[in-house]
């Protein structure tokens, strides 16, 4: 069976270094960056030598040519996720200017040079008002299809403080992409700081789970019925267990949150999509098939290579799918979700 045309929902275009952004920064911040020891956001989501950061033969920060040569075969459309964490820059005005610079760089160096690519708007989401302005700046550019938020944030994303971001995104038909990583300054677990990178990495799935609980239970999807959220690079095999748990919680506690009018799993199914990498797959394909069935994954998953990051082979998943399911996961779901 020939591969269907794919829409790859997670390709990374990273800023090589702070100097890359100098041509796009206002004079004030250019001077500030040159005169200070500021070296860019200090989030350490992808240490360059760590084995998950780049697969064999690829760079941690691939340029356009590498992406075109290595990540775009059989790909009809690729969605870029730039993981530049302006949110970990405490000076919110500098963060906002950096975000604008990143987005301008994305337009000039990626979108204008490769028509198969779409991009994600980087925003200073720790200041939602400034983030909304950034969304308004780029929202009408046809190359941007979503707003990217790091999964680690100062407050869970269902919190109403983020409403200006959702309002601006919904108004312009943009999706929200919640992506692996971030450095808000507080611990990545509910129980303090772990010692090792592998703990941050393995534990990132729990933060995605917390964000799903928050978005549903704090009523974000009731306030914004058109809000579409992609969970990117957070795994998906945990979704059935989360649906079961939170549906049960809702039966017992929904009188505390009367605006959550339907079982939480219904909001998850209607508003969330999840990228397929990392698979975090069980060793037994039967168990993976059970997980897919339990959450109705054929309609929820989005194909993603997560280039250049290194993950397990996706064939264990794709081999389980019928031609119809494969077509949905490899392209139709993304086409509908991102309005491509």
């Amino acid at each position: 069976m020939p591969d269907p045309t794919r829409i790859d929902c997670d390709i990374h275009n990273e800023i090589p270094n702070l100097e890359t952004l100098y041509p796009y920064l206002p004079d004030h911040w250019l001077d500030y960056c040159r005169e200070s020891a500021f070296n860019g956001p200090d989030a350490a989501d992808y240490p360059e030598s760590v084995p998950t950061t780049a697969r064999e033969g690829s760079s941690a920060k691939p340029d356009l040519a590498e992406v075109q040569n290595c990540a775009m075969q059989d790909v009809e459309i690729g969605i870029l996720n730039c993981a530049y964490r302006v949110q970990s820059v405490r000076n919110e005005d500098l963060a906002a200017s950096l975000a604008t610079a990143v987005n301008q760089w994305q337009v000039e160096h990626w979108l204008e040079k490769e028509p198969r690519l779409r991009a994600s708007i980087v925003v200073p989401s720790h200041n939602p008002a400034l983030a909304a302005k950034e969304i308004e700046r780029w929202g009408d550019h046809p190359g941007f299809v979503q707003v990217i938020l790091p999964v680690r944030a100062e407050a869970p994303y269902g919190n109403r403080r983020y409403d200006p971001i959702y309002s601006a995104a919904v108004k312009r038909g943009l999706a929200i992409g919640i992506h692996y990583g971030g450095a808000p300054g507080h611990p990545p677990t509910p129980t303090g700081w772990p010692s090792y990178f592998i703990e941050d990495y393995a534990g990132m799935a729990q933060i995605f789970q917390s964000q799903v609980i928050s978005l549903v239970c704090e009523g974000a999807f009731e306030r914004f019925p058109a809000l579409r959220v992609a969970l990117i690079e957070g795994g998906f095999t945990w979704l059935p267990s989360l649906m079961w748990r939170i549906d049960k919680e809702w039966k017992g506690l929904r009188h505390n949150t009367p605006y959550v009018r339907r079982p939480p799993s219904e909001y998850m199914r209607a508003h969330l999509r999840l990228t397929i990498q990392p698979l975090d797959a069980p060793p037994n394909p039967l168990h993976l098939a059970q997980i897919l069935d339990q959450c109705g994954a054929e309609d929820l998953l989005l194909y993603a290579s997560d280039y250049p990051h290194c993950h397990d082979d996706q064939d264990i998943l794709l081999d389980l799918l019928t031609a119809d399911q494969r077509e949905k996961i490899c392209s139709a779901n993304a086409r509908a979700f991102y309005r491509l």
Partner: protein
Amino acid sequence: MTAQFGSTASVESGPVTKDQTNGHGANSPVSSVQQAPRYRAPLDTAIIDTDIHIYFPTQDALRSYLDESWQDYHRTFGQRGFDGSHYPRAMPNAARHDAWPDDGTPPGSNLPLLQKQLLDEWNIEVGVLNPLVGAGEQRNLAFGAAFARATNEWQVAEWLDPEPRLRASIIVPWEDGELSAAEIDRWGSHPGFVHALLIARTKEPLGRRKYWPMYEAACRHDIPIAIHFGGAAGVPITGSGYPNHYIEDHGGMPQTFQAQVISLIFEGVLQQFPTLKFVLIEGGFAWIPPMLWRMDSAWRKLGSEVPHVTEPPSQLFRRHFWVSTQPMEEPFKPDQFRQLLGQLDLDDRLLFATDYPHWDFDAPDRAFPVPLDKERRRKFMAENARALYKL
């Protein structure tokens, strides 16, 4: 191989229709809460309840077990914990409304009522007490140690001595490894104590070295370390800040348990203490298979950072961890619960628990959403706990 899987969800986001619930069968607030009679299991096995909560009836009762100097301290300064991290529960004391004693003392503080409502009502052979009274969450660690010791003496005098069906937990001031080790050494050979009790939300991940003296003491006495739902340690209760609602606090507890398992395994506790056993209480268990898959996958790629972890995390988990059943996740369809048990592969490790007197109590005949074979019933309801706790 091509294994089809069926789904009825719609591709487009937008209004949810009945078809999208995958067996959940709900499309409005009224119809969505299933009121059909719940499956009832036969009560044909022994029952060991591994999660019962008791509380001091009054603050005076607590003080009567403290040394005189700490009595004055407690009267003057009270209990000082990590403020600003607590969520009002949905009901007073998070308790069943019928569990309040007539004299107005808190649920779980009255032995005759506990005997009547729990031990006699359900013919419980053995019940394990997990007092969540706050000794481990004191910022004053010396007071925490005195508080822990008082709680342990109270358990012996007022619960173990008069009621032979009960077993107790060694309460420790867990944020101090040495003080906790001393408390474990004090009670470790007392036959009434079956584990040392920690809370899920500690100040640091439990794999960190500051906690290791406590694990060393647990190994000395061959008693498990139990980690129970709850806690407030002064850091946000998610990896992404403080949520707004109790449902997020309560429903988000599995994320805390996952963080603790990840820490205990990757920080090398199980290699350092190869005989150590952990019991995860009141965290549910459906999150375990996907967490183990992710941990194994991470270890295959990133294991060089933690060379002390010399075997797959899933293997370590299945050797060192036991898990209580309540509150158990309830899949949309009965078959999915059986699939979960298959993925879990922990038939010898699940321990039945009621969580008396809390609001989300699991009755022994209604805890499991589907019929289980007799062998699994025997194991889950009593025999796994009997083997673990040597009852």
